[in-house]
């Protein structure tokens, strides 16, 4: 996994609550058996005017000029500003894969759905939860100035660049450690093999029907 330490880039404001994972990546693109290549179909039904199909050349499709990700001023955005309950719905990890493949590796919102939030950390994406007023401020900053960039510093736990000054954020220490170092948590868990085996021995005595 790619480590996440510091990121500077354009922020694109998606002013909509309850953005679900069907919206982030529609089901017809879940048929891939790979982890990559989902970027062209991120927000497919919002970005394009036609119905997308797998294995299609998306550069030839009619784009929806009213969708914020298609505005020329946000081209190359690395940070997504979002509203409440971002990523609700299914557990599909294709959602963070699509964001990452598109080039977005940080999402800032007042709240996230649990499974999506967790899936982000497994893929080197940093989801940041801020207070409503702070998110409002970042939306205002982005709309006020074309080319507005933010710097997200995970090491320091600070977002820089807002007109209101530095914004601090908190990330659970284990997840922060894994993200900063790009650690594979399967490897970390396997270091606990003895504890797992010990648990299994104890559990087998208490609940033998689970080990038949």
């Amino acid at each position, binding site marked *: 996994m790619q480590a996440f330490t510091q990121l500077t880039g354009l922020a694109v404001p998606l002013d909509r609550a309850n953005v679900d994972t069907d919206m982030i990546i529609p*089901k017809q693109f879940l048929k891939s058996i790979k982890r990559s290549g989902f970027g062209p179909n991120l927000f497919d039904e919002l970005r394009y005017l036609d119905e997308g199909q797998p294995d299609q050349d998306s550069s030839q499709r009619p784009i929806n000029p009213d969708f914020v990700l298609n505005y020329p001023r946000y081209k190359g955005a690395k940070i997504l500003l979002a509203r409440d309950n971002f990523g609700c719905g299914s557990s599909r990890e294709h959602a963070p894969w699509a964001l990452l493949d598109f080039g977005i590796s940080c999402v800032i919102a007042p709240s996230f759905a649990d*499974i999506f939030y967790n899936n982000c950390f497994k893929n080197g994406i940093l989801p940041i939860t801020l207070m409503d007023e702070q998110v409002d401020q970042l939306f205002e900053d982005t709309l006020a100035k074309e080319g507005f960039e933010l710097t997200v510093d995970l090491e320091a736990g600070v977002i820089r660049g807002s007109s209101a000054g530095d914004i601090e954020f908190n990330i659970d220490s284990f997840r922060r450690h894994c993200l900063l170092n790009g650690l594979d948590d399967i490897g970390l868990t396997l270091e606990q093999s003895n504890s797992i085996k010990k*648990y299994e021995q104890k559990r087998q005595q208490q609940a033998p029907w689970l080990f038949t």
Partner: protein
Amino acid sequence: MAGKTLYDKLWDSHLVKQQDDGSCLIYIDRHLLHEVTSPQAFEGLRLADRKPWRIDTNLATPDHNVPTTADERVIGVDGIADPVSKIQVVTLDDNCDEFGITEFKMQDERQGIVHVVGPEQGATLPGMTVVCGDSHTATHGAMGALAHGIGTSEVEHVLATQCLIQKKSQNMLVRVDGVLGAGVTSKDVVLAIIGVIGTAGGTGYAIEFGGAVFEEMSMEGRMTVCNMAIEAGARVGMVAVDQTTIDYVEGRPFSPKGEHWELAVAAWQDLHSDDDAEFDHVVVLDGASIAPQVTWGTSPEMVLPVFAQVPNPAKEKDDVKAAGITRALEYMGLTAEQAITDIQLDRVFIGSCTNSRIEDLRAAAAVVKGKSVATSLKQALVVPGSGLVKAQAEAEGLHTVFTDAGLEWREPGCSMCLAMNADKLGTGEHCASTSNRNFEGRQGFGGRTHLVSPAMAAAAAIAGHFVDVRTFA
């Protein structure tokens, strides 16, 4: 010290190790797999040269992509017309064969929607931790298990280590007191709950459903309720173990037998929240006040009783909410304050991991028996949740009740719930659906989904529009 909740007990009994930073290693007893979220996990194992930790805890079945027409199914995997769908099903078969994982393949009578198959087989038991790369895994919480959906990286993690790294959620109790009215079902109860707490109301919580309504509810009904916990934002939904649970589990293929059965039943007696347990949040509803529900918008929380009118954004004071209502009405092709019973339907879908069990099919059949589907409808589909549900329904003659009334009787799978196979809505079409999500495009590009109970879907199929099943004859 306060007593423990059911969630606390399940958590504590599966805690392998708590790290200094508060993250916990939790042991997983049952891992269910399907074809959509597993291929990249198996590929990850191969790339890192890792083996599954405990093969026997894994159980797989293809469900999302499988065709539901008998013509396609009879040929087997080669009969899947969509080549991309076929690759996923074949990949699951190949991975399970390679790693030695038990799989109910497409032509096995035990195949079905993974959340129907697990309980039906006794593969998900009280007191277990159950995970699957699917957000509707909370379904299995109806057994008194700790069950939740995971992403593909975690599928790989469970395969490789039999554990997950987790942080404990907070405890929420949703209590529904009293008795449900006639014609009001478990689906109406869970939709009403989501209407009250909202789609993010359960975020960060494990929800226990308690109170007289759930005590009286069948296991199928409890599964419907727990299934949609995620639609309220909670990864975990669960119901305490009682005699209804134990009677349901007894004698199933994977259930404990003989001496182990006696031991298990004794242990399961403790799988309820203690009387003095404290919840971080409690929500109380009165069962008698719940009417049959219909979603009108593009989020499960946009739900109302069938006799209501859809909202008017001009009357909403909160700007963000008003914009959400306006957008949803536009997508759904509805006008402010339109009566729900005036919504004309194009298709009806009875199925999905929420409502495709035998009890659901019986309820729908009872409504359509001796009647005919409205001529204005393009299609009404009934898709059983598993091959065994299908066989049971056919033994009871339900399939001919459906086909005589003009509904199509299909082969088991996820089908039109998420339209990964050929069963989907056309742009602008309205569907009365017993599934779980009414998101934009969920059932097909531009499709308009209304979530309802099986009885309400069946009544709507006959009428061609929504009707109150309590007064429908």
